[in-house]
């Protein structure tokens, strides 16, 4: 072990038997203040050799002549084993100018020689100085060379090993040897700035401190302090380095006398670049650290940092590799498990699942087939549907679908039903046909999945049937059905609505109900009711009556039964209304009530006069007025007659209109009928000086003869009433293809055009008083119309005011 020198002084061994000379030389050399020398003194050759061997002086000043031998012997010892030695030795000789001697010393490798007579302070200092300069220079070169070797070695280690431990161990080893230190360690910080020794090279007998945890409070507090800035800690002697007590204590743990510590920084870790420390210690003695050593260590720490990064990357890579491998293994295990589960699922699926090859032979079929057809799956393997004797229809559909699949490559779907085994009924299946490809992208096999949709299908059929019934009901019901949405747009209208209104379906759907189908006069009220109902559905009018407008603009009164439609969330989505067209019903009711009102008035008027007349007679006030009394009796009698006619007519009409009269049809001759009518009317006409002219061909007619006579008498008596004296009335009959037309034509005052229809209504004569004045009841034409209609004919009037009227009616040959 080399003893470290405390300073950089050059050790000079002076071998000379003259103490005086030795002292002189030393005094001279010390006078050179640019250098500092350390001296070893030997007075004999042997002593000189011993010192050389033990102390390895940097330079030897040797006297040629020594008491126990020649100084050249020392040179020989120094250059031993070296072919061309170059010795840091200067030979001093008293033999000035002895060329033989000079040659000899040079051959032995001495650096210089000096004649004792020439020795002065200047000459000695120059000679020694030159040798020392050369020595220092060559040593420095040597050191640099060594450093480069170390660097190269370490770089090689770093390239050789990816493993951080191997690199770290190699580095500390190289550094410790190179620096000739007692201990070199790599110290790694934990995230909390405590740390651990992760690599060490140490000489015996010093104890190892590998893996030792160091809990210096200094580091955690300042996060590594100046080390983070890259500062190097250099302590030639820790006891003279002005360190804190605790720092010294920490360093003593190793133990340490001199320490050189450089930080290991990771430049890409900006938050805390300080990874660890590269520490070199001399354990026992102080040591002056060379500037070059410090720089070397710094460079090594950079190398180390690179190695660290590399190692970390490598470790991460390894970890991720391991991770990847683990994951692959996990996936494989999971896949296997899934596969097992899938197989179990497929095997136990209620759906029929099978796989066919391109020739439609079964490669696989699950056990569902046994439940469906009662045939074990194994029986299908290698067989086609046809070979299995399945129902022809199912084979054809399957073959056709698979053919399509093989051509198009598109998955197919169809529905099929087939009978279950043991007469368990029909099952419905939805069949999915799916291509399965090989590595070349060709369809290799075909997967077929038969999903049992029997319950769905039956439900669907039931639903369709229910729907069909509803549709049929809606299509055929003789009621209006209208569905409106929330904005009162028509969503549905049934055929009867279209029939009633004359609209086409496309003229109705989507139209606004109010503005298109409700009379303007009723829109406001319905809108108000609707708004009220939207605010409070409780107020919804379940029953409603309003008019609708047909395409031709007629109004029909409809009695509605309304229902609110809600969606599955209970929100109102519209209404559906069923309506009955009550227009005719209302009209009939109105006519009926008017008839009763008029009839009662018509009956009570003659009754009042009869009662008044008889009351007067009974009271006796007319006892002295026989003429007035007779007049009253006449009135009573006349009004009694009128009352009888009226009651007869009303009852007759009522019977006719309620179809309680059965016509007594028989074949009759029209001329005979007309003859009978003329005979009946002749006297009355003659009384009014009116002539009845008839030109009636003989035609057979199948009719109730008495009713036809009644009708014609009625018409003729009307004509007589409204004709002027000396005028004519024509009775004509004309036979055309299907019917016979009867005409009664007068030249009377005529009927205004506006009344041509209403004269056939009950009590609706043109002039109410006319009939009474003319002795009629106001029911004659109504009765005529009823009779004609009973025969299946029509009755109408054509008239020109003040020129005359023609009443015509038809009787069909056959009903």
């Amino acid at each position: 072990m080399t003893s470290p020198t405390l300073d950089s002084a050059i050790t000079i061994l002076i071998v000379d038997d003259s103490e005086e000379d030795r002292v002189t030389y030393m005094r001279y050399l010390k006078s050179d203040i640019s250098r500092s020398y350390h001296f070893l003194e030997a007075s004999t050759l042997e002593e000189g050799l011993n010192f050389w061997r033990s102390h390895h002086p940097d330079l030897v000043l040797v006297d040629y002549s020594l008491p126990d031998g020649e100084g050249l012997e020392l040179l020989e010892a120094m250059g031993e084993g070296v072919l061309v030695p170059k010795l840091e030795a200067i030979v001093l000789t008293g033999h000035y100018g002895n060329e033989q001697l000079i040659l000899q010393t040079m051959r032995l490798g001495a650096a210089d020689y000096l004649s004792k007579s020439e020795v002065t302070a200047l000459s000695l200092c120059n000679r020694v100085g030159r040798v020392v300069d050369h020595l220092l220079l060559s040593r420095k070169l040597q050191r640099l060379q060594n450093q480069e070797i170390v660097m190269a070695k370490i770089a090689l280690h770093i390239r050789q090993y990816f493993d951080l431990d191997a690199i770290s161990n190699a580095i500390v080893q190289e550094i410790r040897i190179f620096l000739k230190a007692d201990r070199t360690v790599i110290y790694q910080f934990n995230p909390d700035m405590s740390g651990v020794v992760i690599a060490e090279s140490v000489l015996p007998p010093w104890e190892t401190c590998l893996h030792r945890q160091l809990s210096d409070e200094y580091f955690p507090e300042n996060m590594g302090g100046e080390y983070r800035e890259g500062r190097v800690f250099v302590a030639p002697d820790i006891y003279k380095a002005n360190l804190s007590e605790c720092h010294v204590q920490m360093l003593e743990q190793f133990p340490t006398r001199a320490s050189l510590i450089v930080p290991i920084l990771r430049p890409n870790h900006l938050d805390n670049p300080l990874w660890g420390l590269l520490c070199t210690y001399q354990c026992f003695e102080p040591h002056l650290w060379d500037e070059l050593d410090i720089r070397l260590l710094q460079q090594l720490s950079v190398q180390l940092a690179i190695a660290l990064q590399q190692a970390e990357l490598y470790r991460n890579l390894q970890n991720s590799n391991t991770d990847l491998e683990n994951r692959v293994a996990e996936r494989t295990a999971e896949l296997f498990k899934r596969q097992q589960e899938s197989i179990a699922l497929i095997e136990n699926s209620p759906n029929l699942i099978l796989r066919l090859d391109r020739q439609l032979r079964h490669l696989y079929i699950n056990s569902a087939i046994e439940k469906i057809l009662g045939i074990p799956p194994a029986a299908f393997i290698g067989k086609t549907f046809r070979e299995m004797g399945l129902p022809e229809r199912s084979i054809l559909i399957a073959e056709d679908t698979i053919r399509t699949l093989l051509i198009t490559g598109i998955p197919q779907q169809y529905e099929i039903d087939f009978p279950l085994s043991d007469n368990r009924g029909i099952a419905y299946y939805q069949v999915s046909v799916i291509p399965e490809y090989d590595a070349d992208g060709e369809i290799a096999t075909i997967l077929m999945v038969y999903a049992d949709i029997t319950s769905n299908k039956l439900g669907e059929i039931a639903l369709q049937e229910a729907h069909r019934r509803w549709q049929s009901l809606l299509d055929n019901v003789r009621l209006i059905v209208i569905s409106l949405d929330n904005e009162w747009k028509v969503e549905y209208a049934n055929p009867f609505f279209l029939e009633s209104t004359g609209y086409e379906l496309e003229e109705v759907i989507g139209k606004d109900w109010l503005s298109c189908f409700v009379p303007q006069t009723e829109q406001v009220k319905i809108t108000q009711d609707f708004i009220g109902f939207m605010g409070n559905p409780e107020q919804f009018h379940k029953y409603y009556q309003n008019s609708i407008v047909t395409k031709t603009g007629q109004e029909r009164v409809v009695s509605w039964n309304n229902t609110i439609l809600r969606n599955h969330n209970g929100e109102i989505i519209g209404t559906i209304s069923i309506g009955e067209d009550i227009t005719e019903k209302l009209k009939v009711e109105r006519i009926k009530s008017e008839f009763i009102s008029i009839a009662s008035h018509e009956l009570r008027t003659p009754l009042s006069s009869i009662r008044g007349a008889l009351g007067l007679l009974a009271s006796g006030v007319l006892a002295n007025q026989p003429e007035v009394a007779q007049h009253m009796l006449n009135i009573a009698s006349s009004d009694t007659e009128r009352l009888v006619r009226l009651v007869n007519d009303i009852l007759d009409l009522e019977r006719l209109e309620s179809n309680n009269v059965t016509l007594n049809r028989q074949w009759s001759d029209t001329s005979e009928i007309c003859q009978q009518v003329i005979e009946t009317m002749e006297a009355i006409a003659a009384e009014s000086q009116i002539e009845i002219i008839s030109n009636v061909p003989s035609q057979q007619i199948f009719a109730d003869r008495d009713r036809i006579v009644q009708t014609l008498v009625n018409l003729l008596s009307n004509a007589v009433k409204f004709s002027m004296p000396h005028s004519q009335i024509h009775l004509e009959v004309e036979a055309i293809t299907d019917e016979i037309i009867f005409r009664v034509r007068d030249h009377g005052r005529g009927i205004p055009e506006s009344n041509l229809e209403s004269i056939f209504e009950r009590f609706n004569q043109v002039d109410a008083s006319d009939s009474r004045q003319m002795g009629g009841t106001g029911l004659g034409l109504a009765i005529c119309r009823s009779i004609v209609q009973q025969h299946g004919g029509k009755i109408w009037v054509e008239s020109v005011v003040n020129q005359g009227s023609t009443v015509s009616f038809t009787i069909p040959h056959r009903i």
Partner: protein
Amino acid sequence: MNIKSILLIDDEINLAQVVAVCLESFKGWKVTVANSGKEGLRLLETIKPDTILLDVMMPDMDGITVYQNLQKNPDTQHIPVIFLTAKVQVSDRQRFAQLGIVGTIAKPFEPLKIADQIAELLDW
């Protein structure tokens, strides 16, 4: 007591004649009968009755028109008018009352009672 004179305008000839006899026999009033509105208006050119009984529903000219003609004529506008009408709805009565008539008697009236009804309406 001077004898009241009444003009009865009604197209129901028989009933009008019975009424006339009733009024003359029981009350001693002098009754003139017209069988149409036109005839009534023509008679009013010569007679000035104390009241007019006017049927509303008549052919040719209805009672309302007759009444309006009476109101236009200064000679007849002061004569109290009683309507004879089959229309006995409350709304009809109100409408007639607004015309300024004395009252209405429902048709067909009872000949034996009508005299008392007229006397009551006219405070005779």
